[in-house]
């Protein structure tokens, strides 16, 4: 094991290399580019024995991964935002075809207006495509999750998305333990697909099925998601035993006796953790629940943690337009009708990469602390005054930075 200082994007590349990916197909988009540039370099140097193909769009990237995976190869790609949206059709296909492709998505806001900054709506909008989704908080978690994702995916035959915040992780350098190749090889043996494109044992894939068969295909995928819950827990524990860092579906922090629990994901978690520590030191009974796995949604884990807690506040750096923040909505569906369900407050914050600072989190805790029940469906935090009157908050002209789209 070696400690390196890696940017989040390179943590993905190292994870993919250690997992011995065999085919990489990708198209560049800010802020994902370093993931693939590093892999191209590794391939060119011979450090990674993979075929690297830079295709003409994200749609083609996923299609190429699907082809590669269908032959039994370990396939990988990375994208972000508009690129992920362009893949949408192929995402459904990868899951429906039960191909354990792994990809990294760097969370970036959607256009228009153009933005390259962090927001989770791109990946959350893919929640119904049949992909496992892991939201990462640190570069270490990014690397570790990449390796685990292959193992989990290959066990349940579902594709997996590793998700990290634009810039807050993708371009931020952190110390990361990089496991030794032999140790990873022991943990993650080569992929042995039950069925593949094979000249010696031919099968036809992608055929038409009538109403008498389709329904069962979907049932089987849903079953695989149930199995995935167990697989994620077991693989996370095994990873802990081997590498000293265990992972699960959710991660509690001072939840036990808490009167208010914040629910977060990705890097907002780290900020929230600092605020919770500070308030605990002042004797306040506040806690935090990080959701690491969004698909399959950890219904049981969430209920176990939150039933009996008086108040819960979800912070969403994402939005289902016309509805709520997406973690908020899903969390409520997990708690609805349960005995001792908490009052759930939903906060939308930090869209388009606006900073969510300790002050933001304090504001949220103050609002939740001052009332028994939420008095609106969604709280917008830090909205500029003009916008509240129904006008856009700025004309965007002040921005003079060089912006890569």
């Amino acid at each position, binding site marked *: 094991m070696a400690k390196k200082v890696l940017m989040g994007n390179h943590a993905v590349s190292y994870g993919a290399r250690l997992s011995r990916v065999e085919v990489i197909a990708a198209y*560049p988009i800010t802020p994902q580019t370093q993931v693939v540039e590093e892999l191209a370099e590794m391939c060119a140097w011979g450090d990674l024995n993979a075929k690297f193909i*830079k295709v003409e769009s994200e749609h083609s990237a996923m299609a190429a991964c699907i082809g590669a995976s269908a032959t039994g190869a370990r396939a990988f790609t990375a994208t972000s935002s508009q690129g992920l949206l362009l893949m949408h059709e192929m995402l459904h296909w990868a899951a429906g075809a039960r191909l354990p492709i792994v990809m990294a998505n760097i969370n970036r806001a959607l256009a228009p207006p153009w933005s390259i900054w962090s927001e989770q709506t791109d990946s959350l909008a893919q929640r119904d495509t049949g992909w496992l989704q892991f939201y990462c908080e640190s570069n270490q978690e990014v690397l570790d999750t990449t390796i685990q994702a292959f193992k989990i995916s290959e066990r349940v035959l579902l594709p997996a998305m590793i998700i990290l915040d634009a810039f807050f992780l993708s371009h931020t350098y952190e110390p990361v333990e990089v496991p030794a190749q032999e140790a990873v090889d022991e943990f993650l043996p080569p992929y042995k697909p039950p069925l593949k494109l094979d000249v010696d044992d031919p099968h036809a894939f992608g055929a038409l099925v009538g109403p008498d068969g389709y329904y069962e295909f979907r049932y089987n995928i849903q079953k695989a998601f149930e199995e995935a819950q167990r697989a994620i827990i077991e693989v996370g524990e095994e990873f802990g035993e081997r590498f000293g860092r265990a992972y699960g579906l959710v991660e509690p922090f001072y939840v036990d006796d808490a009167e208010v629990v914040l629910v977060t994901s990705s890097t907002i978690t780290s900020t929230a953790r600092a605020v919770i520590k500070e308030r605990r030191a002042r004797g306040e009974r506040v806690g935090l629940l990080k959701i690491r796995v969004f698909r399959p949604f950890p219904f049981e884990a969430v209920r176990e943690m939150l039933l009996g807690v008086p108040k819960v506040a979800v912070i969403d750096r994402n939005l289902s337009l016309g509805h709520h923040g997406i973690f908020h909505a899903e969390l409520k569906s997990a708690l609805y009708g349960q005995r001792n369900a908490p009052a759930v407050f939903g906060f939308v914050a930090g869209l388009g990469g606006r900073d969510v600072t300790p002050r933001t989190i304090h504001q949220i805790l103050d609002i939740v602390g001052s009332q028994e029940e939420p008095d609106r469906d969604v709280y917008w935090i830090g909205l500029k005054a003009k916008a509240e009157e129904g006008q856009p908050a700025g004309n965007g002209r002040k921005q003079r930075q060089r912006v890569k*789209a």
Partner: protein
Amino acid sequence: MAVSVRQVEDEALHVIKTDRHPEDEILRKDRLPHIWCPGCGIGVAVTAYIEALKRSDIPREQHVVVSGIGCTGRVAGYVNLDSYHTTHGRAIPFATGLAIANPELEVTVFSGDGDLFAIGGNHIIHAARRNVDLNVICVNNFNYGMTGGQFGPTTPEEAKTTTTPYGNVEDGFNLPYLAAASGAVYVARWTSLHFRPLRDAILRAFQKRGLTFIEVVSPCPTSFGRPNELGEGLDEMEWYRLSCVIDHDADLREIGLSMRKDSHIVVGNFVDVERPEFLERYERVIQRAQGQRSAAQEVGPESKRDQAQAQGGAA
């Protein structure tokens, strides 16, 4: 109208004194300074477009610029005309919608090689086949400039980029050949050194009905020039001066670009042909269909639908 040296000097002095750029009226000054690097060729292409626009007899209000995404894609945001900065690769379909909904517009698509020929590659061949009335100006800098210089659809074999650190294994597209084969009625290639012929080519494109295509070979010193020994923007322009060959009758199959120092760049106005434009043919089909219908009505009994309509009832 002859212009004296004195007049030119006066104009230049006036510009200096008043801190005004000659193209100010067609640029969105509030968006400046622009994002382009020193030595980038995109600005020359924009100036050539503006100069052509000033000389064209199409009123300024009718000109529209549509761009995809990329450094070149930024053009739509800098011109003080109706403009649309669309998504990556989709400039041509957006523009097609504009052009067919309002045929009065003179629609110019300004975008990069990656935008037009990788992610949007499907659209240009179909727009050319369909012969939609669009002008497509492609700034070809042989890489995805905006995302940091990865190889793209025009990157020559062996060229170095951030995703081909030891040389590209693929061939790049020969754009004029591709455009001509797809059906473009006007095809030209110039470089950012050839300001006047480029301006005149754009002017000619404005006059044509149907899909016109102009490739502007352009330095991207930041991402392509330096790793490929073409140097800074000016060095690359100097190389263009030495290596360009004007040949309007070139065999388009032969004019692919390697961008190697020992190679030539063939430039010229290669194709200028007439072919009915999409809406013209569309109109013809409508007339033909209407003609057939009225002929049928003259001879045959009215259809049930026509009878019902004539009686004022719902069909």
